């Protein structure tokens, strides 16, 4: 274990510059945790007290500066008074540092985020090295936290409220060049020159008392005081935009606004105390706990391929085939080409295949136009995609993604044709969204190498891939399929073959509940507003329109046919049937579903909706509608776990977040249960079942875990 003192190396050179170099040798990146903060406090005090030290340089011995706070430490916060006290201690040290009179500079040699950048803000001079991929900013809000090291007080005093608020509220990460332009750093130098440049500045200031702008007499807040027409405008607008966006589901942005509004109207130290109060509120909020768990810890576990079968050597894919150049196939080809994989893009006609490649070309052109890619690079990526109609061209592919029509016969045919050319250990992966893999695998000559890879649309933006393990899929195939997904820089969740897999199955309960409520006479405006107010990006009725009602109707019929007497029909299916067959309203693509989609202007609820689905005299409370829409997803997720469709809470929550934007303030469908409390959630489900139907009944697994106290997130 690294001794506290070892975390910050302290050296004073002949010029009187004391260098405090952070170097946590037990980690790949420096983070702020109890040990490193203690070391920092000690080093700072030493530099302040040391008569030989006439200037102070904050630096890192690692490739990056400081990545931020240790999130294990953050998750462990439970006591408000204790947390506030330790936060105030950090404030005291940073204040001592910036008011000691000696000049202080930061040599930002790489990424400096969150608390790491807040340490830099307490320095008088910041030099950033122009390293590609280095990021500078205060992204705490994205995890439900806020900058608790003085960021909400220093940043606006540095660049004004108007410029600071977006950076704080969105948690924007800037590259060093952007950071310079935004006024976050003073100097931009070539990578490797940071310490040298900082030293030059320090040497120029030795002997002169150095202070922060906000400690200078006559300091005026850039952009004017809070109580001014400009200040009014900034907060009037900032408050509105933030509440419109969060619907009160995310406390951190509101806390940030209060830190800036309240703190900037007082002296600096009082402002820091105000920030500390709000930091504690945010850090202890259930929303922050859920966001840190799901977005950081669980996401890391999933991306680290925790579910990858042991003992299988990693596999690299240099050449991959894509069958079907439609929207999905084209998107997959693009993703592969961007990852450096040679792609054979196959369709029934050369035109269709070329159209698929054009899709990639359009996406690449956009990147070039935005300056995110050079033309030569674009051409190189595009060159990797080979459009063809010849199955023979698939020779040498280590993996083939089948992305043709959702039709068993068509899929079987292309699978057979592909396998005739592929090596026996080449993987055939179907991008089906609804057809069980084990059934499709019957068309394969080597079902052990057959697997499902369910991509999400649009492929270029959606990071999730559902890896669906068929009855005969081998562990090697699973492991290699996960390697392939990671090579595409996407996130795989592992799902066992079943109807609807995981994402479609759970997500569709949200839409279905909305339709059931419509059939009950709940106001459609209330239904869709409730979905959004719960934190979902779109209401269930609008979503049903987007997915297309005729598609949903076809799926319902197929499912009914497949399940026979096992099929449980709900009012939702009747609503869909009536819309499609009775009323001819199939959804957004036809301009008419639950909503009308005029050529110009926003969508509007179909004016005849109330005629066909009369409003009930008694409307439910908003909270009830929200609970129905959100809890049914959790119940279904638990059923999935009970049936072995998905075997752990991490995949379930990460899959929900990435697959259908389940509101991360609740953690995920499983996280929501934890947030509410297992017993409370089971009780709530029983009440919902009594009032609205057996589909809400808590599954046995949930009842069992409520009693045993086990967690859904087993390691």
């Amino acid at each position, binding site marked *: 274990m690294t001794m506290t003192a070892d975390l910050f190396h302290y050296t004073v050179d002949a010029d009187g510059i004391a260098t405090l170099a952070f170097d946590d040798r037990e980690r790949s990146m420096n983070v702020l945790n109890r040990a490193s903060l203690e070391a920092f406090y000690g080093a700072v005090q030493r530099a302040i007290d040391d008569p030989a030290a006439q200037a102070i340089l904050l630096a890192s011995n690692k490739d990056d500066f400081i990545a931020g706070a240790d999130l294990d430490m953050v998750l462990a916060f439970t006591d408000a008074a204790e947390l506030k006290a330790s936060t105030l201690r950090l404030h005291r040290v940073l204040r001592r540092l910036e008011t000691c009179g000696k000049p202080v500079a930061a040599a930002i040699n790489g990424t400096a985020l969150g608390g790491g950048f807040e340490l830099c803000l307490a320095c008088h001079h910041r030099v950033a090295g122009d390293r590609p991929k280095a990021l500078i900013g205060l992204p705490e809000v994205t995890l439900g936290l806020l900058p608790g090291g003085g960021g909400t007080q220093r940043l606006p005093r540095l660049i004004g409220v108007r410029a600071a608020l977006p950076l704080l509220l969105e948690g924007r990460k800037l590259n060093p060049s952007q950071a310079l332009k935004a006024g976050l750093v003073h100097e931009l130098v070539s990578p490797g020159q940071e310490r040298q440049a900082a030293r030059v500045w320090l040497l120029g200031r030795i002997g002169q008392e150095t202070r922060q702008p906000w400690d200078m007499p006559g300091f005026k807040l850039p952009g004017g005081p809070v109580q001014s027409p400009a200040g009014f405008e900034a907060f009037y607008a900032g408050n509105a935009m*933030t509440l419109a966006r969060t619907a009160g589901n995310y406390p951190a942005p*509101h806390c940030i606004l209060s830190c800036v509004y309240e703190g900037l109207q007082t002296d600096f130290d009082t402002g820091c105390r105000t920030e500390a109060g709000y930091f504690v509120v945010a850090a202890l909020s259930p929303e922050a706990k859920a966001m840190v768990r799901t977005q950081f810890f669980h996401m890391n576990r999933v991306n680290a391929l925790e579910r990858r079968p042991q003992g299988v050597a990693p596999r690299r894919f240099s050449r991959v085939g894509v069958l079907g150049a439609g929207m999905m196939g084209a998107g997959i080809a693009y993703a592969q080409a961007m990852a450096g994989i040679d792609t054979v893009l196959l369709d029934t006609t050369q035109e269709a295949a070329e159209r698929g490649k054009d899709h990639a070309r359009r996406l690449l052109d956009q990147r070039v136009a935005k300056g995110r890619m050079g033309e030569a690079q674009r051409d190189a990526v595009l060159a990797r995609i080979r459009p063809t109609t010849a199955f023979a061209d698939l020779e040498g592919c280590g993996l083939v993604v089948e992305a043709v029509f959702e039709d068993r016969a068509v899929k079987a045919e292309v699978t057979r044709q592909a396998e005739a050319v592929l090596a026996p250990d080449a993987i055939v992966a179907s991008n089906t969204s609804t057809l069980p893999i084990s059934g499709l695998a019957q068309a394969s000559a080597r079902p052990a190498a057959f697997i499902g890879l369910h991509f999400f649309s649009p492929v270029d933006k959606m990071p999730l891939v559902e890896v669906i393990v068929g009855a005969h899929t081998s562990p090697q195939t699973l492991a290699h399929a996960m390697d392939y997904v990671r090579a595409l820089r996407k996130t795989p969740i592992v799902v066992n073959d079943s109807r609807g897999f995981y994402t479609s199955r759970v997500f569709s309960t949200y839409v279905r509940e909305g339709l059931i409520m419509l059939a009950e006479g709940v106001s459609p405006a209330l239904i869709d507003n409730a979905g959004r107010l719960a934190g979902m990006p779109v209401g269930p009725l609008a979503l049903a329109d987007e997915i297309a009602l005729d598609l949903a109707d076809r799926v319902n019929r197929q499912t009914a046919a497949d399940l026979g007497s096992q099929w449980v029909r709900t009012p939702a299916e009747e609503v869909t049937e009536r819309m499609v067959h009775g009323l001819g309203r199939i959804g957004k693509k036809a301009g008419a579903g639950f909503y009308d989609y005029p050529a110009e202007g926003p969508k509007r609820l179909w004016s005849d909706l109330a005629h066909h689905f009369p409003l009930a005299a008694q409307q439910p409370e908003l909270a009830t509608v929200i609970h129905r829409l959100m809890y049914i997803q959790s119940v279904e997720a638990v059923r999935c776990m009970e049936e072995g469709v998905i075997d752990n809470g991490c995949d379930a929550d990460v899959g929900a977040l990435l697959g259908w934007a389940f509101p991360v303030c609740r953690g995920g469908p499983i996280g929501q249960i934890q947030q509410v409390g297992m017993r409370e959630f089971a009780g709530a489900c029983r009440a919902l079942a009594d009032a609205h139907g057996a589909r809400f009944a808590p599954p046995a697994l949930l009842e069992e875990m409520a009693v045993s106290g086990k967690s859904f997130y087993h390691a």
Partner: protein
Amino acid sequence: MNHAYIYDAVRTPRGKGRKGGGLHGATPVHLAATVLAALRDRHALDTSAIDDVVLGCVEPVGEQGANIARIAALVAGYDTVAPGVHVNRFCASGLEACNIAAAQVMAGQAGLVVGGGVESMSRVPMMTSGGAWAMDPDVARRTHFVPQGVSADIIATRWGYSRHALDCYAVESQRRAARAQAEGRYAASLVPVRDVNGIPLLDRDESVRPDATLENLSTLAPAFAGQGELGFDAIALQRYPDMERIEHRHHAGNSSGIVDGAAAVLIGSREAGARLGLRPRARIRAFGSIGSDPTLMLTGPSVATEKVLARAGMAVRDVDLFEVNEAFAAVVLRFLDALEVPADRVNVNGGAIALGHPLGATGAMLLGTVLDELERQDLNTGLVTLCVGAGMGTATLIERV
């Protein structure tokens, strides 16, 4: 209990609330002193008998700060023994001031009190005094703050008042105001504002647009759509999730005008009036305020009216004339529907859409307006009510004597 009587009511004309407006060159203290002096001069009042001067003002900062009531009383030459106090219940402040005056008299704690209000929106614009409601992030979030124009549009959407209906109402307000001006119906209370030489600066309400038509109103773009898009529509739907969207239908032509003005009402007991040889014109029977949803904000008038009528043991049909402040057309339309009041009893001489709404003064102006009209038509009972920011409503019921 002592009764409180209205002995007189005066008001300045309403000048356009921007530079170039007829009263822009008059300081707020001067506007207030003008009406205070007028009350005194019309009755040769011994102002040492005045127990208090209560003036409403919504932006009590800068030129309107530091208790403008007391300062204006001194400047008007009132006897120094007459104290003054400023009051702020936003748009109802002028009426609130009169209610407070009446309460002092009815409680037997004062004999003669002046209630009134002043607002120079051209010199101290709306929002100058800031405040936590819109600005403090914690407050704005908890109260689901939306600006009043969005509230007006929520009302129009929720109760189905079309753009056409709102504009029709606005045209009618202009027509009634123009007729009232032509027939001199305001003359009894109107006092001119004079410059330092005594030369009149403005002697008539200058905002009235007799040429307003449905056609020219229909060309005006909705004024609050931008605010809605900024985020306030989404916030409104968080508060009222049974609504699909907020339709933006209000604009400058069917909302109250921004103007400058002041008003004062002399209120007192029977004995105090008699001692000074004053003849009472009306009795203040009941008054009160209520709170309602801050986001919806502007539906207070009907609720305040019901409360006041109940206290007086009266019904809507017992009231001959109403003055319902035309903050926005939908406010009045909603009032009419909520209480089933015939439109020909409400704002019969036009309202703030035509005349303008000098925030802190309007309530007191409306009291004089309804009283003048009751006398003109020889009717008996009048009620004044205004919607108020942050979700309130204030009402006052008077009857002639």
